[in-house]
């Protein structure tokens, strides 16, 4: 991650504070928009019984879950990028997404929705264990081998999901739509669980921020600076996998967020981990709430689009724009 070679900014940087304020405004604005708009028009200040139920039992938990999932996936992507020291790392390339989805799809076919969360967690941990085992050499984690192992796990899990889809035959449509992602089954319990996971993971990142900045240098420099590099990588890998598994279990596979959100912020010029962690959480949340709002409102008559389709499209287009606009400043020529 060549971008991390920039000089460390001064504490209390005014630009960062302004950006934090801007991001908080953005999250609040998108939250208000997402809560006030949906398949059914609601008069927020004059709600009848049905309106109240729609707002508090359907829409509000959904908006909150979307925001937290965006935050979780973006944070997982950031941590994976630190572990792998590779800008292409995210929940997809590390195999965490696909192995978690494999567990969830198995649960959906065999036992129904009730077992999706434990199965997704088990799947993610199994995938993680495989990556960990393959990439470990005498107690060290090898970043490039880990990335390759992640791609292998991803390919294997994707193939297994395809096989299940083939065998399931008539349940294919259900699985495919589930894999495309969505927040229909949001509950406050899920919101609470994911909020806890995001909060704990972000706090961990903030506490480890100086060490995370040092991982941008080569291993020897980081080690000689007193960073417990290998333990740090294991912790980051586990935290990223946990965030991914919970997100996948609650919302299916939602692509691209973990990859683009950290990159967008780096492209704008935020490089320190202490700044990136909260910014990634806020920006990921705003991005996902907006994508879900569009998924809920673009089609008429209460129809919905799978949110994963929108995140990939929106994120892809925006990222492409930035790449074309700022390719000289990007990693190679920075």
């Amino acid at each position, binding site marked *: 991650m060549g971008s991390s070679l920039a000089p460390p900014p001064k504490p209390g940087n005014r630009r960062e504070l302004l950006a934090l304020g801007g991001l908080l405004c953005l999250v609040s604005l998108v939250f208000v928009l997402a809560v006030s708009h949906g398949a*059914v028009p609601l008069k927020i200040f004059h709600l009848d019984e*049905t309106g109240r139920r729609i707002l508090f039992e359907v829409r509000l*938990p959904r908006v909150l879950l979307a925001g937290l999932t965006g935050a979780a996936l973006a944070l997982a992507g950031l941590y994976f990028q630190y572990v792998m020291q590779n800008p292409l790392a995210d929940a997809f390339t590390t195999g965490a997404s696909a192995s978690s989805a494999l567990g969830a799809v198995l649960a959906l076919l065999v036992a129904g929705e*009730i077992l999706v969360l434990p199965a997704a967690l088990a799947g993610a941990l199994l995938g993680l264990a495989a990556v960990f085992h393959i990439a470990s050499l005498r107690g060290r984690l090898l970043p490039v081998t880990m990335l390759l192992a992640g791609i292998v796990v991803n390919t294997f899990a994707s193939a297994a999901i395809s096989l299940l889809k083939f065998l399931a035959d008539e349940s294919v449509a*259900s699985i495919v739509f589930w894999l495309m992602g969505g927040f229909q089954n949001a509950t406050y319990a899920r919101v609470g669980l994911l909020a806890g996971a995001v909060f704990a993971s972000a706090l961990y990142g903030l506490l480890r921020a100086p060490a995370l900045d040092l991982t941008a240098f080569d291993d020897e420099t980081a080690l000689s600076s007193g960073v417990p590099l290998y333990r740090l990588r294991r912790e980051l890998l586990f935290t990223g996998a946990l965030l991914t598994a919970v997100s996948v279990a609650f919302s299916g596979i939602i692509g691209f967020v973990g990859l683009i959100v950290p990159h967008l912020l780096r492209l704008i010029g935020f490089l320190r981990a202490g700044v990136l962690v909260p910014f990634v959480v806020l920006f990921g949340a705003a991005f996902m709430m907006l994508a879900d709002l569009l998924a809920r409102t673009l089609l008429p*008559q*209460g*129809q*919905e689009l*799978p949110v994963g389709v929108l995140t990939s499209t929106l994120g892809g287009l925006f990222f492409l724009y930035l790449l074309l606009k700022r390719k000289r400043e990007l990693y190679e020529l920075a």
Partner: protein
Amino acid sequence: MKRGVFLFTVFFLLLTGSALALRIVVLYPAASPILRALGIPDREVVGVTRHDRVYPGAIKVGSHLRPNLELIRALAPDLLIVGSRRAFPEETARKFSARIFRYDPRTLQEILTNIKALGEILGRRQAAEALVEKLSAILSRIKPLPRPVTVIYEVSATPLKVAGARSIVNDLIRVAGGRNLVTVPRKHVLISPEKVLALAPEVYIYQVGPMNRHPIPPKKRPYFRGLRSRILRVEELEFARPGLNAFSAALKLNHMFLSCVR
């Protein structure tokens, strides 16, 4: 004399059709019970899809969405009964010299029309007419309702998909005296739970079967706590397949609606 008897026998067999035994491959499982009801014997149905149990002796030729074309070709069929153009595209159909019969009804009336057409093709016109009469008699037992019952029919819970205007279920509801509140011109509609609550159907039907395995009952789902509808659980294979079953399903649904109106 012997030659004369032989020629007469051949002529007689040709006339009655038994010498023209067809080789039929059925790629749409809902069509098999119709063939059975028309009296098509086991030896004429040489291939079926893997979940089709009506003709147990027939070779399994894959699923209706992914049929094995080599196997089908090896069976040298005279007649292929296939589903929609999406499931069996024209381009694939052109690879076979066999006659193609598309069975893709979206209403109960279209099922009856298809039965008659199959009867013509298979030389079973009388059996087809008798079957149509029998099925129409089931429909005639449907009792009128004082007003249409408003309905939403859940196809799958995760994600929430309901039957749209192009689903056979839509017509089944109409025939039974109900009105599908989802009028989107699609077979299945991915819908917001908010919309379902706002539409407030009198009856919310959820199916259980291959497309909706182990669903949580609607009122136990957090987003449907506010649903005031009467909940009905039905079997997918009985209610959402455009075959003979659809007629008794319509009658059953009519009885359910009647109890709701009362």
